[in-house]
């Protein structure tokens, strides 16, 4: 686990200096929540119907910004090649990047989430923690697939464009499951939520295992 923690620690130090990843995700997330809260009249519709969708639009698109920044850090000065020269299983490098991407996404989401609660007149109670729990599972799946896709797009000509083009279709099932689970939490009808949570956990595990195994071939020229 040492290389994984070394990569997380390195990314945290760089993020604390540059403040580019979390701040951009945060700005985007807050902006999405603000725009949608103005777009929909609070009294005109049942907020629990649209609020989960708004939240996950904010989370999933903000994640792309964070992944692009993470990618830029490794492309700058060909740092990815430096990582590849280390005497490690390349899957460990992938796990390190997943862990740091997940950490930054969660930090941004944990700041955005209270704003979402305030904008939607929700209460800071168990419901809040349940949404945070769904966010953990959904974000893990997004980080797992996003970390390998950002590495694939690093070798293409239009890196920043290629990442969302690849990422959005592959995370659709994750976003749908996350929206459904969040919706159930907000409406208080949590019967059947476990199937969506199992789906999220399943996607995370499949993405992690497959990406761990193929990462070596993705990074080699």
């Amino acid at each position, binding site marked *: 686990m040492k290389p994984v923690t*070394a990569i997380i620690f390195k990314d945290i130090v760089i993020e604390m200096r540059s403040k580019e990843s979390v701040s951009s995700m945060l700005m985007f997330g807050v902006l999405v929540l603000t725009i949608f809260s103005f777009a929909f009249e609070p009294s005109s519709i049942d907020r629990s119907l649209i609020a989960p969708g708004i939240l996950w639009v904010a989370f999933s698109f903000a994640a792309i910004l964070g992944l692009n920044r993470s990618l830029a850090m490794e492309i700058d000065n060909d740092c990815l090649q430096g990582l590849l020269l280390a005497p*490690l299983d390349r899957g460990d490098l992938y796990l390190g990047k997943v862990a740091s991407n997940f950490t930054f996404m969660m930090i941004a989401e944990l700041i955005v989430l209270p704003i979402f609660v305030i904008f939607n007149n929700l209460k800071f109670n168990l419901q809040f923690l349940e949404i945070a729990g769904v966010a953990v599972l959904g974000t893990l799946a997004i980080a797992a697939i996003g970390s390998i896709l950002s590495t694939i797009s690093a070798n293409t000509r239009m890196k920043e464009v290629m990442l969302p083009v690849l990422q959005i279709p592959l995370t659709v099932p994750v976003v749908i499951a996350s929206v459904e689970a969040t919706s159930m939490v907000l409406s208080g009808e949590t019967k059947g939520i476990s199937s969506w949570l199992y789906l999220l956990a399943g996607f995370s595990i499949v993405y992690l295992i497959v990406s761990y195994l193929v990462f070596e071939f993705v990074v080699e020229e």
Partner: protein
Amino acid sequence: MPDTLALESEDIRKTFGHFTALAGVTLTVKRGEFLAVFGRNGAGKTTFLKIAATLVRHTHGKLRVEGIDIREEPEKARRHIGFLSHNTYLYRDLSPVENLRFFSRLYGIPDSEERIMALLDRVGLRRRAADPVRAFSRGLHQRLGIARVMLHDPSVIMLDEPYTGLDANAVEILNQILDQAAAAGKTIILTSHDLEQGLRAASRAVVIDRGKIVFEGSPKDSAIRDAYAAYIRVGVAR
């Protein structure tokens, strides 16, 4: 593979789509040897070094570093390899100490602090140890890159055009480090466009052209200059 060989390649080929970068490179490098590799742009020097450093997967052939097949046991082979290219692979937002500390963790080097400070001393960066690499000139970058390469004490040092963009002072430091490494019995493989720089400390020289070795000989042999003129200068004229 005889145990005196640091690197042995058998018919290494590499194609990128329809483009053939290496058309069958067979080369042996003895332990402690200083090999200079010359060739014009696109000749295949960098591709060969990157394959040997396990950064690029070869299409055909076998390559062993310190007797270890790089395809079968790449992680084990990487422990013996130090690779420096034109890009230094250093994080600009970290300081030299932080960069070297990070790489020492990746390489699993125990008690690395002393070694990091000693290396920074060697490359003349001790006083800049806490400055962000972002503020460094090309020469300082490359010096720190050399420290990164030497961090895990590799037995085979591969340098791809290491003199590019260096000022006289940085060239002098690089030469000193290479001389010390050669004296310590390290194997050095260096690619260069500059014949005089490349031959300075080399014990053998090869010229690669169109993905094949077209000349192999002693740097003292005048034939290397003829080969250089024939394959590199003429290459420019073509």
